[in-house]
């Protein structure tokens, strides 16, 4: 296992070298909170941050994304043809993405990069990214990545992992892409593996021990879908919900979108926008019927999708990386950890006396 040492004073020099080959993105301190943004020349990402309010999923799936355009102006050669927008897919490098957010992109990939269907827009944007993760030393009280299949030093979905070791970073190249980028940056000072690993293990154990919040997911797969669907707790769980889409918009693993056509005069575009299962419009049929007509239906759907349908379909854990954003941003304090516990421990009705 190779580890590279970067002195912090040399970090900016490496970034400048990277900026010649990639467009750099990273966490930046804004007026209200940190956010992932393009880094200007010479700008250093600010690694002193808790999870950003919005997840970096927008780097691959922007909230609004134009896919096609057309013109009805007969003076133009290609009028009346719906043309695909040529995307800018030049290489981008994200410095300082959290392991949970990188794992989330990998999880979402299941939906957009499947054997049967492949979404060229999503896949193109995803493949243009190189992800330098920053091992998380500042988990929040709402973080539960360690029981959601990840961890603060998790490498899944990353091309390289940076560990802040005080005056210097220890970096582990994970993929060829990552290795190449490290070379471009001129970060090639390999250090003794055992020493590096000892330091990293110590930091990792400390970070993991700071994560005190957990979810139990062990029974979800064996639970009866119908029993969970009909469980009596949904009325209580959904009562406070105001059906805003905040939880789904801040979630790094929510991938739903809506296709919209917008026209102006003789030209127009076809775009996709984030959509949310919290909205009544999400499932409204052309007939006017809505199979998820009440907020109970919609709240149940969100949790059933993340914690049951996904679990059953992929047999690889829950559709959640434990970043805690939905818990922090929910205006009425609906907490996925609480709901997960209710679902996981819901008694099997076949074993319960009906009286």
């Amino acid at each position, binding site marked *: 296992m190779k580890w590279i040492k970067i002195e912090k004073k040399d970090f900016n020099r490496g970034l400048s070298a990277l900026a010649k080959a990639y467009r750099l993105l990273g966490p930046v301190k804004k007026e209200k909170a940190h956010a992932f943004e393009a880094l200007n020349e010479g700008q250093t990402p600010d690694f002193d941050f808790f999870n950003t*309010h919005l997840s970096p999923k927008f780097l691959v799936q922007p909230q609004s994304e134009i896919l096609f355009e057309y013109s009805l102006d007969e003076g133009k050669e290609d009028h009346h043809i719906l043309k695909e927008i040529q995307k800018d897919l030049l290489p981008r490098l994200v410095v300082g993405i959290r392991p949970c957010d990188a794992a989330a992109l990998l999880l979402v990939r299941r939906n957009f990069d499947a054997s049967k269907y492949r979404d060229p827009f999503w896949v193109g944007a995803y493949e243009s990214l190189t992800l330098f993760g920053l091992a998380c030393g500042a988990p929040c009280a709402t973080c539960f990545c360690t029981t959601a299949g990840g961890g603060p030093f998790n490498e899944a979905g990353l091309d390289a992992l940076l560990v802040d070791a005080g005056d210097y970073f220890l970096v582990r190249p994970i993929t060829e892409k990552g290795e190449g980028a490290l070379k471009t940056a001129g970060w090639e000072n390999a250090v003794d593996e055992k020493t590096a690993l000892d330091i990293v293990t110590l930091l990792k154990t400390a970070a993991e021990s700071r994560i005190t919040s957990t979810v139990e997911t062990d029974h979800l797969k064996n639970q009866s879908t119908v029993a969970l669907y009909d469980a009596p707790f949904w009325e209580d769980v959904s009562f406070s919900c105001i059906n805003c*889409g905040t939880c789904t918009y801040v979630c790094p693993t929510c991938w739903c979108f809506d296709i919209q056509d917008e026209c102006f005069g003789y030209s127009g575009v076809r775009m996709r926008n984030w959509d949310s299962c919290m*909205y009544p419009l999400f499932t409204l049929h052309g007939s006017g019927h809505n199979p998820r007509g009440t907020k109970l239906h919609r709240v149940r759907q969100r949790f059933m999708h993340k914690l049951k349908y996904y679990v059953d379909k992929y047999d690889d854990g829950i559709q959640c990386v434990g970043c805690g954003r939905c818990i922090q941003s929910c205006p009425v304090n609906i907490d996925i950890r609480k709901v997960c516990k209710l679902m996981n421990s819901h008694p099997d009705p076949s074993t319960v006396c009906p009286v």
Partner: protein
Amino acid sequence: MIEYNQKIREIAARLLKEGKVDMVIGFRKGTMPMMNEPCFIKKPEQANLLVWDSHCGINLANYLYDRKEKIGVVAKGCDSRNIVTHIVENKIRREQVYIIGVPCTGMADKRRIALLTQKDGEIREVSEEKGRITVKGDKFNKIFEKGEVLQDNCSTCLHRNPVIHDEMVAEPVPEQTGIDPFKDVRETEKLPPEEKRVFFKNLVADCIRCYACRNACPLCYCPTCFVDEARPQWVGKSVDPTDTMTFHFLRAYHCAGRCTDCGACERACPVGIRVRQFTKKLNKDCLELFNWKAGLTLDERPPLDTYKPQDPNDFIR
């Protein structure tokens, strides 16, 4: 304020036991510091779930309508004004609600507190005693006078006591005096048109169109909001700045003469937009033009859905 807890529980248990109401809507303790969750109880033995402190900012009037039960509801000043508005607008019948009035000394602004302790780290625990709020993190402990960390709307609130109630949990608190709630609006009004445009543009620049402000608002109960209409579609659904501004402006106008400045919109916004900058201007206009404040009386409809011969009409002369 925490002293109200016991009284609220007693009243709730009694109402449920006597069958005066089918459910009581109040708050239960949240899973995060500075957050409580709106909840309902239907059995007297659940009454101990109910809590009251400075983190009950959600407007419970939002949970009352389109229900069949007889409802007991815990209501602070602004909630009570929105209940009045609901009754006036026929969203709920007066006899369907039993209002448990709570004299309020304001709700804490969790964002402001988080900002004031940002350098110290994450807040892990919050407690409250005698008008002081203590927040604790892993390495810090800070005490705030509640008055310093109030939600903006609470610091300029002129109706802290419920305007309508069936029972009070305590004696009324003194109302604030000598306060100009529209100071910031006056500043904005003075701006030249172009600067005003930029002001509003910047105000909503971070909007993600999640509609949390609308959904947290007790006034926004339209079966289909104009932004969700599909035939015809009035507003685009992307994050185009013009569409986003259209949403905010139109929503504010739909609330004109009905808004109680309860602050639910700002509290709910996940990206911290000062949504009240829109609604407050209209509140000010309603006060100046019609001498009207929303939700104070059951006997009068809001000025914008009534006509009176003496209404100001200089603008069409």
